[in-house]
């Protein structure tokens, strides 16, 4: 029998590079085909990319959470009718048409996943990170949430129940993390800087005020 190649690290690396350029060519070819057919305005693609690179991202959600921490009436509205409360701050649209906000407490921690694809609240968090769309997270979040949290460096008290929300329909979930101690008296803007993307998916906690000043 033939021996396998001795060291395949370089080979794999070269393959990965080729693979990327294969996808580059494949996407270019498809784009030019669909543009030439008249189905797509390439300027629209530019505008879509620019929107999600520079305009719509997790700072939207951080503003929502900071307001909920600061304004009890807004917090109640957010938990009752998240779509309307979030729209009042100007965050609407694609993959945020039907929003639900779920609030963490000492007793219960919320974690959001889409086991079937990549459903994610774009209007408040932007594009999902790659891990959110990938098999390791999608497979394990529902069966081993505490193990998943540990991988993100989060250890909750043993008494804290974990509630996982699998986004199987068109509802999109935003986690309201717990407001950190020592953040009393901070402005909404300063509070928003404590709110990480991961904390709004439920795989992280809000930053401590001491961590945010740097």
């Amino acid at each position, binding site marked *: 029998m033939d021996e396998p190649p001795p060291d395949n690290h370089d080979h794999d690396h070269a393959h990965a590079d080729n693979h*990327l350029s294969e*996808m*580059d060519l*494949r*996407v*270019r*070819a*498809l784009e030019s*085909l*669909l543009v030439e*057919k008249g*189905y*797509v*305005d390439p300027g*629209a*693609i*530019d*505008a*879509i*990319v620019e*929107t*999600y*690179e520079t305009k*719509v*991202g997790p700072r939207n959600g951080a503003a929502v959470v900071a307001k909920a921490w600061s304004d009890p009436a807004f917090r109640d509205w957010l938990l009752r009718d998240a779509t309307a409360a979030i729209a009042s701050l100007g965050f*609407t*649209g*694609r993959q945020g*048409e*039907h929003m639900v906000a779920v609030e963490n407490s000492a007793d219960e921690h919320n974690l959001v996943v889409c086991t*079937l*694809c990549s459903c994610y609240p774009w209007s408040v968090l*932007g*594009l999902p*990170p790659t*891990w959110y*769309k*990938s*098999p*390791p997270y*999608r*497979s394990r*979040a*529902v*069966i081993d*949430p505490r193990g*998943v949290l540990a*991988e993100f460096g989060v250890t909750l008290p043993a*008494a804290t*129940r*974990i509630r*996982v*929300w*699998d986004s*199987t*329909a*068109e*509802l999109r979930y935003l986690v309201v993390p717990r407001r950190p101690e020592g953040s009393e008296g901070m402005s909404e803007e300063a509070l928003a800087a404590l709110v990480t*993307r*991961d904390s709004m998916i439920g795989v992280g906690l809000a930053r401590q005020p001491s961590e945010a000043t740097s």
Partner: protein
Amino acid sequence: MNGAQDLGGMMGFGAIATEPEDHRFHAEWEKRAMGLTIAMGATGSWSIDASRHARESLDPADYLSSSYYEIWIKGLERLSVAQGLVTQEEVDHGRVATAPAPIKRVLRRDDVAAVLARGSPCDRPATAAAVFKPGDQVRTRNINPMGHTRLPRYARAKKGVIDRVHGAFVFPDANAHGGGEQPQWVYTVRFSARQLWGEAAEAGHSVSIDAWESYLERA
């Protein structure tokens, strides 16, 4: 369908590759793949349900070894061919060989901001009263359709409790296959982790799905 997309509860995929919050794309082609997929979706040539079904219909080995934007592009190629917008030969050779097909609309650059901000709501007027209310005990049906469904395998034939009632929404199992929207009530159904995964699961943990009414029966 029982495809590779239905990942809940599977094992062996390894560690989660976390990434920083400001990391949006890993290559230029990912940007074009994302924008192209959305721009083609905006032509109205297929529903979001049909596009999800095109992705989950990839060969399982292909699905699991593809990055998510690769899955999107492979799905987009299939949909474009299936809808007669392009031929497979045109995709393979990257050259136009046939006349364009009529499409409903083209998304222009100047309309992108408004279209993205509007989104595509999929709630619809209910045609009947909701069968279930919060607190009702239900059991998910044991269904294994060849076509599209949003009831994951791990949550089939399981007892849960109605947690929230969300209104009527387009039914993906029908809409993905040209069956029309057939709106149904959608409920958040909460299951104990032990109901889903057995006695080894932590007692207090729970998992919920959002389920269309026809996925459920009274328990």
